[in-house]
């Protein structure tokens, strides 16, 4: 069966051993749910939580298990903003583009990140170090503009704070950057 992964040609090549990891993770998640379309969104959310994104093979495996066409799964994953079809960076930067943030410089913060990282919103840096996304209101409008750095909400993000956030990842031992610490060697 030709995989959507190949057919659509929009997915990044998988890393070594990733295919196996995907298969195992998806099987694990599928075991927890009854194979019904009703559970599709919870399944996708949980798989994404484990893998960081929804790789093509994962969607196929889920489709097969629920006995629905793979394009239905793919369609659903593209309909909802929460799902990511590309591998995220090791650090995820989400710039809030809710009203309050937009009006006080969210756009400026986003452009600063884009410039500093050399990528556009929705993209991941080549070494999969950072990915940059926009989100709608995360519910902290009183701290606008807001950026969610990994799971941490940062408020009042001025252009200088953007630099500060990125700098904090450059030193592997910096507080709040333990993920960078694990693989400090490629924190460049």
């Amino acid at each position, binding site marked *: 069966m030709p995989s959507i992964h190949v057919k659509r040609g929009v997915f990044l090549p998988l890393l070594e051993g990733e295919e196996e990891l995907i298969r195992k993770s998806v099987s694990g998640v599928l075991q927890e749910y009854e194979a019904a*379309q009703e559970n599709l969104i919870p399944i996708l959310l949980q798989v994404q939580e484990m893998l960081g994104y929804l790789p093509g093979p994962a969607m196929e495996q889920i489709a097969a298990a629920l006995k629905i066409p793979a394009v239905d799964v793919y369609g659903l994953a593209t309909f909802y903003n929460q799902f990511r079809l590309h591998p995220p960076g090791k650090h995820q930067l989400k710039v809030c583009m809710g009203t309050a943030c937009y009006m006080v410089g969210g756009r400026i913060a986003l452009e600063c990140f884009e410039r500093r990282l050399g990528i556009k919103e929705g993209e991941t840096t080549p070494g999969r170090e950072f990915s940059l996304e926009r989100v709608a209101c995360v519910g902290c409008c009183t701290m606008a503009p807001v950026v969610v750095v990994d799971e941490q909400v940062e408020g009042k993000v001025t*252009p200088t704070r953007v630099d500060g956030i990125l700098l904090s990842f450059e030193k592997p031992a910096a507080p709040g950057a333990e993920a960078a610490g694990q693989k400090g060697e490629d924190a460049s």
Partner: protein
Amino acid sequence: MNGNAAAAVRERYRKLEADAAARIKAIYNGPVIRVGTATCGIAAGALPVKEAFARVVEEKGLPAKIIDVGCMGHCYAEPLVIISKPGFPSLCYGYLDEDLAARLVDDFLINDDPCYEFALVALEPNDVFPTFSDFPRGVYEQKIVLEHCGFIDPGDIDHYIARGGYGALAAALGKAPAGVLDTVKESHLRGRGGAGFPAGLKWEAAVKAGPGEKYVICNADEGDPGAFMDRGILESCPHQVIEGMLLCAYAVGAERGYFYIRAEYPLAVERVRRALEQAREKGLLGGAILGSGFNCELEIFQGSGAFVCGEATALVRSMEGKMGIPATRPPRLAQSGYRGRPTVLNNVKTFAYVPPIFNRGVEWFKSIGTDDNPGTAVFSLVGKVAHTGLVEVPMGTTLRQLIFEVGEGPANGKAFKAAQIGGPSGGCLPEAALDIPIDFDSLQEAGAIMGSGGLVVLDEDDCMVAIARYFLEFTQQESCGKCTFCRLGTKHMLDILTRITEGCGEPGDLEILEELAEDVRDGSLCNLGATAPNPVLTTLRYFRDEYEAHIFEKRCPALMCKELIVYYIEPQKCSKLCNVCVGSCPTEAIYTRDDGLKAIDQEKCVKCDNCLKTCPPDYNAVIKLSPPGLLTEKEGKKA
């Protein structure tokens, strides 16, 4: 239920309440530090503050307890704590940091000096320090939905029970479901998700749909990009919403219900999950609730970030594992909803009103607000206003009172420009419209909508064309694509607005916008499309001159639209001794002129705003000019 069974339920609740009250009272026999740890408190640094308290309390071997609470509504002053010490009124402190935390432990808990200079307000009336009702905000505010928010631990059900929580449920279980329904109908409670549909009628329709499986769903999708009331409530007092849902389930005969919560709200999901577990342990959820014959299970369903899924029929579809595309009604959800069964879907706040209505009575509820709009309105007050936060005022309060008294007006001495109310479906109201009362009907007349309660204050620095464009971009992206006008009409409008903000607007654009707006409004199935033109129509109605400045003068009066401004350093203000802006510029666009002052190379400038932000207040030499042509004038003068 017969009298004996009803008495048994009451008895069981009385015991729960007595135990909870005793436990909570024991906690407050010693000093208690309550730390606001809702999402935005955490963002403001509440966790290190909490750790600092814990550390110092432990070091000094004090008996003080540290408790997590949710949002107190005074979000501008976060991190916030409340310290209660026997012999003193409970005092609320704002703008906490670790040093102040350590100092409060030393001075207040050990040495009996409450450091009044740092206190914001006292919770109970006393002779020494003002309480909420001594401030303008306290005069206007009346809390029903937010009553417990910020004061109780959302992670410990006993706090809610000790304040009488679940008492309304216990009392209702002793009555027939029809009696419960009647109370809600008599209260005239209107749904708070935006449209203001009477909750009692909706519930009644589900009852009339006949026997069999039914569902209750709490809509916590909160997609309005600039509103966080529902998040605040779920993070701060989830049990009040659970109790409201259970009352609804009992009234309509449902045995299963769901919280549909946005995936962007992980903390709300976690707190609701924990609350459900604790309610189950206490016998308040699940089988034979409080020993009665009523069974009801509640679960969480995580939404996946599509704005349109806040719409009732789309929400139900997405719960069924399909794309969230709205359906034509009828059938109404109350007849055929989730899994094709009768379903009652209400907003978080709608459910949260229900327990207080039962506890204090329909007459009390109707005495608040206006005749057609009983009760209160909850807003997240954000944007350019001094006191941002979650506020709750009686319906009928004016926008002016809300913004200028409760919110203390625009921040930083800027001039007020508009109130954006109702999010992408709402509109921007100017100063002149601020005296209209807040209720579902009056706001609609003014061209805005009540919406679910997002209120963004805009000041002179905010461009009305840009905000209209912003909302249209949002709805355009979020359109599910089913209706042609919603999909393409909004795209067309967006293109025109983008052109205008980029200085390529043409005469006639505004008329085309108005025509398209009508088409989109009339040609859309759901309210996403039907209300999408509102932000454009209201800004055109009240701020047409700003559009015209963009089109005919290529000028952005608010100095916001990037293509229509340039950054400029005023030589007469710039100092030779300073060069902070030079280092702040990411593109090395700032150079030193022969005379030692700084200037900007416009070719290199990417308009990032850094230099303007970093130029010291003593000089304030960096300014924005619009239209960009002004630059030649300025530079000409200098030469």
